[in-house]
Every structure is written in C-alpha cells, then in structure tokens.
C-alpha cells in the first residue's frame, strides 16, 4: 500500500511502513506502545551477539542502499575480535527518485535507532554514526529527538539496560554531495575530507573503514528491517515477501513509497501507486534509480528483484522506480540525468570528470537545435569510453541511460537533430562557468 499522508494510524498491510503515519510515532512513548524497543530488550537480555547475527543472516536480508549485498554476510566479514569497530548508517539518500529512507526517518525515526542498537550489539560496536543527508533538515530534528529520548531511557549510552553493552550514536550532517553516498566516499566525508572514493583494496570498509578500523556500513532501510527480523524471526520475514520499499515517482497518479514483497512486478507497482494518468500509456521507467538502465514497455511484467533486473542489464538499485508515460521527452530526461552525474562527479578520475561534461555538452547542443548527425555515434563512443573505466560507479551511471536511449528512442534524438537550426543561439549555461579565482 502506498504510504500516503491521508491515512493516520498503523497500517497492518505494511511492515516497514506500518507506523509511519501514526500520530506521535516519533515520540518514544508512542513508539514503545506500538511494540517499539521490544527487540532491544529481548536481544540484550536473551540473545548473545552471535545469535543476532545468525538471525539476520538467516533472513537473507539484502542491503537496501543500492548494491543489494547480503547483510548477514557483510556482518560476518567483520573481525569480531578487533578492539575498535564502527557502525555507520548510510542516510545520504541522494539517488534521484529515492525517498524511502526519508519516509522512514520522518515517520518512524525510533525504528532506525532501534535497528542501530541491535546491530551494534550484534557486532560489538561502541560508536555508531548516522551520515545524514544535509538537505534532510526535518529528519535531522526528528532523528535527533529520537536519539535524545533513547539516551534518556538508557537505551543509548553507558551500560544499556544494565548490561555490559554501551553505545554512543552521533548524527553527522552531510553537506550536499551525492558521491558521499558511495560507502568509501562516505567514510572520507565522515572523516572530514572531500568525499572522494577510496581505493579498494586496501580500503574495504569491513577491514579498513572509518579511521581505518573495521566498519559496517548499512543503509537506513536495511537497519529498519532488523528489529522486525528479531521480533518475528527469519522465517516470518521471508513469508512477508520479504518486505521491500519502492520509491515510486514520475507519471503515476499516487506517487509515494510502496511497500511490496520483493519481486512484485513493475505493472503491480504502477497499480499500487495509483496507476498511470487517464489516457496515458507506459513508455519507460528507471527501475532502480537514475543509475539503472531504463526499462521499456515490453518489460512491464518483470519481477522487480535483483536477479530479474540484472538479466535485463538493469538493476534493483535503491528501489527508486521512476515511471514515464508517452508524454515524456526521453532526450530531455536523459540529458537531465547526465547533468546530475556531471554535477555530482567528485572529479577524482578522468573518464567521469571529463566524460560526464562532454556528454552533457553534446546532449544540450542537440536539445538546443545544434545537433549533428555524427553526434549519435559520438555519444556511443563516449558511452563506451566511460564504461568499465571509471574509478567508482558514479561515472558509469551515465552510459545505461544513454545506451537505452540510443537503442530504444533513437528516433527522438534524430528528430531533434533533424530540426537543428544553427541560427538559434546556444544558451549559456551558468552552471558551467567555472570560478576564475586564485589571482
């Protein structure tokens, strides 16, 4: 069911989103009244850390940040005996089309805090950090409140619930950089540097993470699953689907976060989001954020899970489903997506720093009536030169859009080029003016 602001109160058809519309849910008392922190009490009193890891591992929970890596496996990489380890929560949610973490943080911030406590207990972590996207001002306040209350109730801090387990939790504000969502760039950023990805190896977070100590990095949604898994068991979790959040936006009547069993079809997701606008037909969609290769009409019945999407050369990503109907100008969309990566490139490696801008320059030229017939070959050439050559996945997020566009909507590019008119001046892009400083 879509999480829509109209409905107030628990929504029994949902798991992760069950309480996001409950009035006062961000207050710890309401949260506890709705079953909150039961898992922490249980785990800390009745389970040893290995049992918590085993429960999550058994649930086959996969990371919800984009890569879909099995969470239990990630946790087991950590050297249990390392004296200092960290948990870092990736709340940088910046992939275009993604807003499920924000929905969880705004609607049920205590759920994340509970997930963090459980995970830290499982891994023997003493200090945890939430790297929170800078633009999420409301989340900052709400999560800050939840943490304060957790400290007040002895759920954070020294000797939690009278056990030997202690945990401090700090919310670290991001400051406007999509690349900071990439795990090693996030760690650089959290260490107070420019968010530029680190070289792997040796900097695998599990081995050399935050401050070069073993570190587990998980997405917000991933950790919000943990209390549910511990409360109800891995088997129950699997029976639920497992529950997966899809951020559905674009040309649907009721955009919002949809909770559905992993593998729901694209058609079903569109329906759950209120369907297309009357009289419109489906044209294309990004199934997993703007980094994923767009799907087209023939894919409408694909199961929205990692395997099926990978088979189509696309990916599940962050579960951001951007629906486009027949009114969509694909050249504009692809140019806008490319521009996003150009803006957000960290500038470390050559193909991304230079390639994203070149692609945008060519697409802008085409859009503004200065396209050349050779441009489509040029775009193919650039796409190829950016594929498999970038330092991190950011730069390689441009080719999927471009390749799908050139394969499925070539006629739209050609139409622009055919209408080209050299007499129309190219608008100057203010964003491209580089500061001429330093004199």
């Amino acid at each position, binding site marked *: 069911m879509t999480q829509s602001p109209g409905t107030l109160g628990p929504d029994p058809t949902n798991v992760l989103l069950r309480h996001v519309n409950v009035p006062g849910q961000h207050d710890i008392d309401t949260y506890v009244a709705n079953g909150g922190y039961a898992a922490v009490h249980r785990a800390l009193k009745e389970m040893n850390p290995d049992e918590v890891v085993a429960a999550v591992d058994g649930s086959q929970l996969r990371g919800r940040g984009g890569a879909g890596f099995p969470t239990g496996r990630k946790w087991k990489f950590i050297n249990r005996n390392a004296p200092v380890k960290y948990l870092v929560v990736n709340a940088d949610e910046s992939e275009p089309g993604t807003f499920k973490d924000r929905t969880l943080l705004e609607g049920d911030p205590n759920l994340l805090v509970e997930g963090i406590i459980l995970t830290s207990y499982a891994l023997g972590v003493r200090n945890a950090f939430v790297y929170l996207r*800078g633009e999420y001002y409301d989340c900052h306040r709400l999560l800050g409140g939840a943490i304060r209350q957790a400290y007040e109730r002895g759920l954070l801090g020294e000797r939690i619930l009278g056990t030997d387990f202690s945990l401090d939790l700090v919310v670290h504000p991001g400051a406007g950089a999509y690349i900071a969502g990439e795990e090693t760039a996030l760690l650089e950023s959290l260490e*107070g540097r420019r968010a530029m990805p680190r070289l792997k190896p040796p900097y695998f977070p599990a081995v050399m993470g935050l401050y070069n100590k073993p570190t587990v990095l998980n997405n917000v949604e991933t950790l919000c699953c943990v209390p549910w898994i511990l409360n109800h068991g891995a088997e129950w979790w699997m029976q639920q689907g497992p529950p997966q959040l899809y951020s559905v936006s674009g040309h649907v009547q009721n955009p919002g976060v949809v909770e559905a069993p992993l593998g729901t079809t694209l058609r079903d997701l569109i329906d759950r989001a209120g369907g297309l606008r009357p009289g419109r037909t489906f044209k294309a969609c990004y199934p997993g954020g703007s980094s994923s290769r767009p799907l087209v009409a023939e894919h409408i019945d694909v199961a929205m899970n990692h395997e099926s999407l990978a088979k189509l050369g696309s990916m599940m990503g962050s579960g951001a489903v951007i629906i486009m109907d027949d009114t969509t100008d694909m050249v504009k969309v692809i140019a806008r997506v490319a521009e*996003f990566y150009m803006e957000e490139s960290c500038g470390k490696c050559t193909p991304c720093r230079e390639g994203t801008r070149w692609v945008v320059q060519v697409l802008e030229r085409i859009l503004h009536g200065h396209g050349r017939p050779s441009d489509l070959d040029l775009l193919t050439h650039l796409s190829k030169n950016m594929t498999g050559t970038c330092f991190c996945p950011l730069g390689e997020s441009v080719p999927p859009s471009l390749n799908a566009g050139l394969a499925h909507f070539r006629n739209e590019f050609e139409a622009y080029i055919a209408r080209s008119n050299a007499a129309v001046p190219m608008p100057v892009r203010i964003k491209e003016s580089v500061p001429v400083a330093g004199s």
Partner: protein
Amino acid sequence: MTPETHTLAPAAVADIREIKARYPVAQSALVPALLRVQAEYGWVPPETYDGIAELLGLDTEVVAEVASFYLLVFTAPVGRQVIQLCTNVSCLLAGADAIQAHVEAKLGVKTRQTTADGRFTYIVAECLGACEEAPCMLVGEKRYKRLTREKVDEILDRTDS
C-alpha cells in the same frame, strides 16, 4: 590561538569544541563546524578558515579544500534565504522546467546567484529526496511540495518580506 580565532563568535567556538568532542578524530568535526559557522553568517567567510583550522588542529588549506567541495557550504555570501529548486527527473516529469523558468523570471537570477535586493540566493538543486511531492523546493530548511506558479508566487512573496 592565533588572533584570527577571534573572528569566530565565542558561542560558535564553544559549539565547535563540543562537536569536536563527539568524534574520535577531530577532523570529523570539520563539516559540522563549517555549518555551525554558516549558521552565524549565512555563509562561511574564508577569514574564518584559520580559526576553524586552529580549533580542530588542521591546516587551513584542508579547511579550504573541504569547504569548496560541499555544495551546502557556501563559500561566498548568500541572500537572506536560500532557495533550492529541484529540477531532477521526477520533478522534471512533474513540470519542474516550467517552475524553473517562472522562478528565474520572477527573481531575475540564474542558479547560484543572489537577487539584487539580497533576499534570495537561488540554486538549481539536484533531487531533494521528495519525489512524491514533485515538483518541490526548499526555502531555507522548509520544503514546499507540488509547486505551481501560483504557489511559488505565494511562497516567495510571503518569505522574508
């Protein structure tokens, strides 16, 4: 404590010390410290870099390179309110280009510029993570959803006037 430190307000210095204490390594406090200074001036004057560096035990050059990387750290003066208008895909599909044209015409500025009267700095933003509310924008810390031209007029006329 070089004299430059004194250009930071005592309250900001105290807050930055407190922020620093949250982290095992002081440099982690750099971006939060920059944001704290920004809360003071609306932006981060380069003259404060030395003071921040001193408080965190860093080289001033490090403060400068980090400040210049993050878009929400303003290294030049901004207007009294900062508008971040999302024009990314989901908002584009919901008509953000028309809203963008409207805002730019109304304020007479392009992205990263400040209106002549100093009221607004306007930024063409990337996805704000609120695509279900497309098209949307942030004015300061407040988010506005499902923008129309009329709504934009109302919001901007009401804000800081």
